[in-house]
C-alpha cells in the first residue's frame, strides 16, 4: 500500500510502486483534469504540484511521491478563483483546452518563483506544449495573474 495526499485528501493505494503518478490520478482516483499528452515529460499536459513544485506526473513513479502532498487542477481552488485561473478566464486563453490544466499548474508554480516575470522569463521557464498555439494569450494571462497576485 502506498500512502499519499491528493488535494488535501489522504489515500492508501494498492498499486505497483512504479506506476506513473499520472495514471494513478486518472485511473485509480478518477480525476481526469490532469491529461496524458506524451508520457515522456515532453509536453507538460500532466503537470501537477508535488509539495508545491510543478512536476510532470507521467514521468514520476508513485513510489517516489509516497507520503507527499499532491495538488491537481481540481484542487487548485474550490471555485476556479485562483488568480491564474481568473487571468486565464479574462484572457479567454483555452482553445481545445486539452493542455490547459498543465499550463495553469505550470504557471502557478512559475509565478511563485517569478512574481514579476518578463516575457523572457516566461519563455525560458515555461515549456509546456499547446498544439492550438494559445501561447500569445498565455503570456498575457501570466502578466495579468502576476498583477492580480500583487494586489
Amino acid at each position: 500500500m502506498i500512502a499519499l495526499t491528493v488535494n488535501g485528501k489522504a489515500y492508501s493505494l494498492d498499486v505497483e510502486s512504479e506506476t506513473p503518478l499520472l495514471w494513478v490520478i486518472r485511473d485509480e482516483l478518477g480525476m481526469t483534469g490532469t491529461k496524458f499528452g506524451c508520457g515522456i515529460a515532453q509536453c507538460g499536459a500532466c503537470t501537477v504540484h508535488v509539495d508545491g513544485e510543478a512536476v510532470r506526473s507521467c514521468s514520476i513513479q508513485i513510489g517516489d511521491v509516497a507520503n507527499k502532498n499532491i495538488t491537481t487542477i481540481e484542487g487548485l481552488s474550490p471555485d476556479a478563483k485562483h488568480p491564474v485561473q481568473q487571468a486565464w478566464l479574462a484572457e479567454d486563453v483555452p482553445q481545445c483546452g486539452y493542455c490547459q490544466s498543465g499550463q495553469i499548474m505550470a504557471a502557478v508554480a512559475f509565478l511563485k518563483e517569478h512574481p514579476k516575470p518578463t516575457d523572457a522569463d516566461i519563455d525560458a521557464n515555461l515549456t509546456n506544449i499547446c498544439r492550438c498555439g494559445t501561447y500569445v494569450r498565455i503570456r498575457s494571462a501570466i502578466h495579468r495573474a502576476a498583477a492580480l497576485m500583487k494586489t
Partner: protein
Amino acid sequence: MNRIANTSITRRHFVIASASAAGGLAISVAFPGLADAASIGMQAWGPETAPNEINAFLAIDPDGSILIRSPHQEMGQGAITALPMIVAEELECDWSKVKVEYASPARNLREKNVYGEMTTVGSRGVRTSWQMLLQAGASARERLIAAAAHRWNVPPSECEAANSRVTHKATGRSLDYGALAADAAKINLDKEPAIRTPDQFKLIGKRVARLDTPLKINGSAKFAIDTQVPGMVYAAVAACPVFGGKLKSVDETPAKGRRGVLQVVKLDNAVVVVADRFWRAKEALALLKPEWDVGEAGNTDSAQFAKLYRDTLDGAMVNARNDGNVDDAFGKGGKIVEAVYEAPHLAHATMEPLNATVHLQADKLEVWLGSQTPMGTIRQAAAASGLKPEQIVIHNCFLGGGFGRRSINDEMRQAILVAKDVGKPVKLVWTREEDMTHDRYRPQAAVRMKAALGADGMPTAFDARIAVGSILRSTGINKVESGIEAQAVEGFANIPYAIPSVRVGCMLKNTHVPVMFWRSVGSSQNAFFVESYIDELAQAAGQDPYKFRRALLAGKSDFLGVLDTIAVKSDWGKPLGQGRGRGIAIHECYGSIIGQVAEVTVSQKGEVKVDRVVAAVDCGHVVNPGIVEAQIQSGVIYGLSAALYGEITIKQGRVEQANFDEYQVVRLADTPKIEVYLALSGGKKWGGIGEPGTAATAPAVANAVFAATGTRVRSMPLKNIKLPGPV
C-alpha cells in the same frame, strides 16, 4: 434555408409548458460580460430532444432558459460559442440564459440532416451554417411574437421582441419567452421571416467570451479520454509499424499473468492488450514482440519518395487549368525563372492522442470519442460493428485538437473490434508513439514552377507542375478518376495574380503512407510554394515583393485591403538591420484571404528566430473578433511548427518520429509577437477562419529568411536548411 422552416413545423416531443413564468422586470443587459455569460455543461452532448423545442436548434423552458444546439463540434476553434451567437442574434434573447449543447448525430440521421452535414472540417462552421442558424433564430422569434400577439389579441406587427421578452408597444404589456414558448411551438407562420442583413447585426461582431473557458480552466471539460463507463476495461494497441502490413504472429506469454492483464487481442494488423488499467495494458504490450508481414513497403524510405515525386515532375500531367498559351509565351523569350520546391509529410499531433470508448451490446453501440465528422463516424461504427446506423449512439466529446485528424476514426474501429472480443465496455487509448506513427499524414509533394517575365518585369506566363499524394484516394473517399483533386491544386488553380497565361498540371502519386487533411490541407504546402516563388519572381524583376504583388493584384480590392494592411502595420520598407528581414505572403483559402508579414532574425550560426508576425484577414464578416484573433494566432503557431521543425520521415517503411522529442513543435520560446488585423470586405463573403492562418506562415517566414540572408528556402522545414548567417 427552407430546411429550418420545415422542421420547426414538424417538431416532435412538445410538452405544454406551465403558464407560471413570472412577468417581472426587463433585464436590459444586451451583451453581458463574463459574469452573465451563457453556459455549457462539462460534457458537450445532452439528450437528443428537449420538452420545449421551438425547432431542432432551440428549446425554451418555462423559466426562460434557452437551449441552443450547435451543429458543429468544438475542437478549439470556438464553434460552440460563435454558432449559438448567430442563433441568438435573431432570437433577441438574453445571452446569459443560453445553454449550449452539440446537436445529436443520431437525430440528424433520423430527421434527414436537419442539422446539415455536421462536419467540422474545411473551416466550415460559420461559413456553411450561418444562414441556417440565423433562420432558426428568426423563425423562433417570429413564433414567439405571434404567440404573444395571439394572447393579447393584437396584430403581431404591433409587438416587438427584445432581451427574451415580447412587448406590445402600445400598451406596454410584455411576456417572457419562457411563458410563450409552449404556444410558439404550435404556431405555423404563413411565411418564414427574412433573415437580417449584416448592417442590422447587434450581437454578431461582438467580442463575447467563449462559453467553454470556465470548463477548461478547472479540468472539468470532458474529453473522450476522460470517459468512465461502469465495468470498462482499458486497451493499449500496437499496430503494424509499416502501413498496410499484417500481424503474422505474436507470443502472448510475456503479457499473460501480469497484474491486471485480462486478454491479448489480435487484430488483422495490430496487437492489443486489455487490462483493468491503461498503464498495465501499455506495460504488458511493451513486452510483446509481434511478427509482422510488412511486404515490399518495408523497404521504402523518404529519400525514395522524394525522388518519386521529383521524377514525377518530368512525366505526364493532367491540367487543372490552362489559360492563354503558356508555351507560346515561353517561346517569346524574356527572362525565364524556374525552381523546384518540396514539402514533407507532417503529423497532426493533436494534443489529445486518439482514443475511443465503446460499449457494444447486442442491439446498440455507444461510442465516446472526439469526431470532426459524426455522421461519418456513425457509418464507420456501423461497418465495424455490423449494427445498423440507427443503433449507433455517438457521444461526441470536446475534441483535444482535430486539425483534420479526427475526421476518420481509426481508433474507434479498433475499439469496436476489441469490444467484440472482450464483451465489456472498452476504452482504447493510443500512446503518443502510436498516434504519431499511425497518423494519416499531410501528403509529401514536389512542384516545379516556371515563369517568363516581360520587358517590364511582370510575368507573362506561369507554368506549375505538381506531384503530390492524393488524399481522396488514400482515405477511400473517391478514386479521383479525373486525375485531379481540388486539395492538390488549391492555391495554384486559383492563383490570384494577373498573369496572361497560366497552366497548372498535376499528377497524383500515392505510396503506402496514408495521407489526409491537415490544417489548411493543400494550401498548407501550396501557399508556401506559390508565395515563395512569387518572391523569386519579384527578385528577378528587381522589384519590392510587396509592390510586385500589389501590381499583380490590381483591381482586386479585397486582396489589396489585406496586403496593404499588413504592409502598413508591419512598417514594410523600414530597415531592420543586420541579420534581420521581413517576408510577406498572401493566400486565399476556405473563402478567406490571409496575409502575413514575418520578421526574423538569423543568428551568426544560421539559427532562425521569428520575432513578429503581422497578420490580416478578410473573412468577409466576423461573428466574434476574439475568436477570429485566437484562430489566426493558432494558425500561425501551427504553421510555424511546420515551417521550423515539421517533418515525418520514413525508414524501412515506418515513421521515424514517435514523440515530441523527435517531432519538435513550437513552444513559448519560439512564439513570436503576433498581431491580428481585420480587413473585411463584407458583402456576400463569409469565409472560414480555422485554417487560413496556417497557410501563409511558412512562405512569410521563408521570404523573411531570404531577406535576412539571401538564401532562398525551397523546401521545409527550416531546421534542415543550412543558412550562411546574415548577409
